[in-house]
């Protein structure tokens, strides 16, 4: 092994780079000639060396060994000098496999891709991050992952030792405490000072990220810890990953829950992030069917089949005598409604939507971890029984307890209740179909028609909706038959714009190896935050179909500002100033084509929609991304 220290090589490199740069900046021919002479001399010196150069085992090689030991399939990254050594180790030492480096054009896109990937694959994607500037770009996406309880493992390069920093870039891109930037919305972070410290913290970080409630973690990597050669004889060790079993609810509390549910006249299961896997979805169906209980799914995860007869509208909460809330940080908002008499709609103290005496039970891992600054936990809701546990881990025991308590009499009562709920579900479905017909032939396109035309062409394929199912007025959720866990990925958690496009690309990447057709209902405003992620999809051959909800505005904001104009008795008609995206109207087909996608549009005639979907799906089935720019109704 080569013994010389890398810093001397780096000094040579910097000296040469500085000389060349000075010549270029000054536009000085003499200096440029001098620089060329220096280059030639260095090249001659190198060629005349008697010994061949043997590979250096750098600190980043060991770091990569650690990262590989954790089973990452991909690492998403926008390149940056503070992790250049790990970058090089990943592609050369590691052969760019497990993890494979994904070229991202923005750090927010990198983390959001990791977010979307997890929601399909159930395993985290790593992200490499460039010091202070990369972390600032990534902060919003890390916040979304935090709010959505999604594990993302961020490795951030940082030039910790000021005496090693050589230029303006090194200075501006380093931080005293690089994890501090995002500490309010990560589960854990660390700044290792040795390679063995890195190994322990990486394994610990992965374990923490994956333990419910899951969340992002950040590991700082000193630039020179990465770049320096590993000293001869240094003993390095990668600890074994010991995954933590998700916390299960206390057996006594679970038994009490079962008793309340079985004896209830009208129990309702309110699910937010209840199912973490396909198994969780099956438990949800099993519990609901045993009890013939109504299920209200807030669709933050694929908690319950959309066409199951027990899937009900949230209004059933008003009839409930027992409500079982699962992993819901916004329980207060779910069970309290707006006070209609309030002079400031939306800011009222609220009034309970529940029947007097209704019992509230909560099973939530969110009770086991919380941060202070960001307020995604919602308002405090009093409950009758609070079980701090992971829902999916607790459901099997709850199901067993419920089974033990069901008597023939109760079973008959459950069946009668189930029949009424099935009838209500059927009526709701018929209403949906009637509403879907409104404006069916209109232009701009009705969002219901876009969803229906898509459904007709994917329903017999193995499909996955890689965007929120309540987008486009929830028409996908209302018209499509969601029954498998991977068939939708829920929402962003933070309700922030800019998540959807990159998360969809990450989810589509996860779907690729299973041969699924990935469908993204893509909002126009969201796409323009990270359009570069389309290039990443092309570059990495990620097939997906993006169908635009192109209403040429941030329409929710239009409505919000209109509401304020009305409240202030001023001109409601001016509220598209600052909210519309229509002058010029963005030609999304051209944008996508420029980034290597097959694209058609703008499509404004509903009759053109079906054939366009057919052509685009053929492209996707060939393994390429495609986009249809469908100009839609506002909502």
């Amino acid at each position: 092994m080569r013994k010389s220290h890398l810093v001397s090589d780096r000094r040579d490199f910097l000296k040469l780079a500085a000389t060349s740069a000075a010549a270029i900046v000054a536009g000085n021919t003499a200096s440029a000639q001098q620089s060329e002479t220096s280059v030639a001399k260095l090249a001659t010196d190198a060629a005349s060396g008697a010994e061949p150069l043997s590979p250096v085992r750098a600190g980043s090689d060991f770091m990569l060994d650690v990262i590989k030991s954790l089973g990452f399939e991909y690492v998403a990254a926008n390149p940056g000098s503070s992790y250049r050594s790990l970058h090089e180790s990943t592609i050369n030492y590691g052969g760019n496999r497990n993890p494979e480096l994904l070229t991202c054009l923005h750090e927010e896109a990198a983390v959001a891709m990791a977010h979307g990937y997890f929601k399909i694959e159930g395993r985290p994607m790593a992200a490499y991050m460039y010091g202070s500037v990369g972390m600032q770009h990534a902060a919003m996406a890390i916040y979304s992952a935090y709010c959505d309880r999604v594990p993302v493992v961020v490795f951030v390069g940082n030039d910790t030792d000021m005496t090693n920093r050589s230029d303006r870039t090194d200075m501006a891109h380093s931080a005293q405490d690089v994890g501090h930037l995002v500490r309010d919305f990560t589960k854990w972070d660390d700044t290792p000072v040795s390679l063995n410290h890195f190994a322990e913290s990486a394994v610990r970080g992965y374990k923490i990220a994956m333990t419910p409630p899951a969340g992002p973690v950040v590991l700082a990597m000193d630039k020179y810890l990465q770049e320096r050669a590993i000293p001869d004889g240094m003993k390095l060790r990668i600890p074994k990953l010991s995954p933590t079993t998700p916390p299960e609810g206390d057996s006594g509390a679970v038994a009490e829950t079962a008793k309340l549910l079985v004896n209830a006249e009208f129990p309702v299961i309110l699910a937010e992030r209840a199912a973490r896997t396909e198994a969780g979805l099956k438990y949800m169906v099993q519990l609901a069917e045993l009890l013939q209980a109504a299920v209200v799914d807030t669709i933050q995860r694929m908690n319950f089949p959309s066409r199951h007869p027990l899937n009900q509208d949230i209004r059933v909460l008003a009839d409930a005598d027992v409500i079982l809330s699962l992993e819901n940080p916004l329980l207060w908002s779910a069970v309290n409604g707006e006070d209609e008499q309030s002079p400031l709609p939306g800011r009222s103290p609220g009034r309970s939507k529940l029947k007097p005496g209704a019992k509230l039970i909560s099973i939530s891992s969110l009770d086991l971890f919380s941060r202070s600054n960001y307020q995604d936990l919602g308002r405090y809701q009093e409950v009758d029984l609070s079980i701090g546990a992971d829902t999916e881990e607790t459901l099997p025991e709850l199901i067993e307890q419920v089974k033990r308590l069901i008597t023939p009499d109760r079973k008959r009562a459950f069946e009668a209740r189930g029949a009424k709920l099935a009838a209500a579900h059927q009526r709701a479905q018929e209403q949906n179909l009637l509403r879907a017909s409104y404006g069916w032939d209109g232009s701009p396109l009705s969002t219901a028609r876009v969803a229906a035309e898509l459904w007709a062409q994917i329903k017999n394929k193995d499909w996955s909706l890689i965007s929120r199912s309540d987008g486009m007025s929830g028409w996908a959720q209302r018209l499509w038959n969601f029954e498998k866990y991977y068939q939708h990925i829920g929402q962003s958690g933070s309700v922030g714009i800019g998540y959807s496009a990159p998360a969809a690309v990450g989810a589509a990447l996860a779907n690729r190896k299973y041969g699924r057709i990935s469908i993204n209902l893509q909002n126009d405003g969201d796409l323009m935050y990270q359009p570069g992620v389309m290039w990443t999809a092309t570059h990495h051959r990620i097939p997906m179909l993006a169908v635009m909800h192109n209403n040429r505005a941030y329409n929710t904001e239009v409505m919000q500002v209109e509401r304020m104009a009305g409240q202030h008795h001023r001109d409601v008609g001016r509220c598209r100033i600052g909210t519309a995206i229509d002058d010029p109207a963005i030609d999304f087909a051209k944008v996508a084509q420029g980034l290597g996608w097959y694209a058609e549009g703008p499509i404004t005639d509903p009759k053109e929609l079906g054939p366009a979907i057919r052509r685009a799906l053929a492209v996707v089935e060939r393994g390429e991304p495609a986009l249809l720019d469908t100009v839609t109704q506002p909502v």
Partner: protein
Amino acid sequence: MGRSSLCRFSVQLIVLGLAMLLSLAVAAVSARSQKSGAPAGTAPAENVENGRKAFIQHGCFSCHGFSGEGGAGPRLAQNPIPFQAFVQYVRRPKLTMPPFGTQVPDQELADIYAFLKSIPPSPDPKGIPLLANP
């Protein structure tokens, strides 16, 4: 689309609430309009094309769709509530709809009303193959 947290459920509730309030408003406004001498349920002379333009100009389409087929707000097309109730509701609505007060002149309201009535009926969902067996 925007980032604000107008979730699906709250929108549905708002729509439902609006629809109920609109129907309640009909009776109240009929009584008021009779007091002022205007015949209930009638509109001034009207211009459909001007109504379409005014519907867009005043931002009505943001919530109700370009053809009043509904969205975040209720469906208005084809069979709007009686004209006087309509006027009253636009001027002083309940819940989340912005109160327009006197921003929209009577004539424009009449035109918008005519526009909404003129929108052709949507096809029967049973006659739409994509909805007949989704």
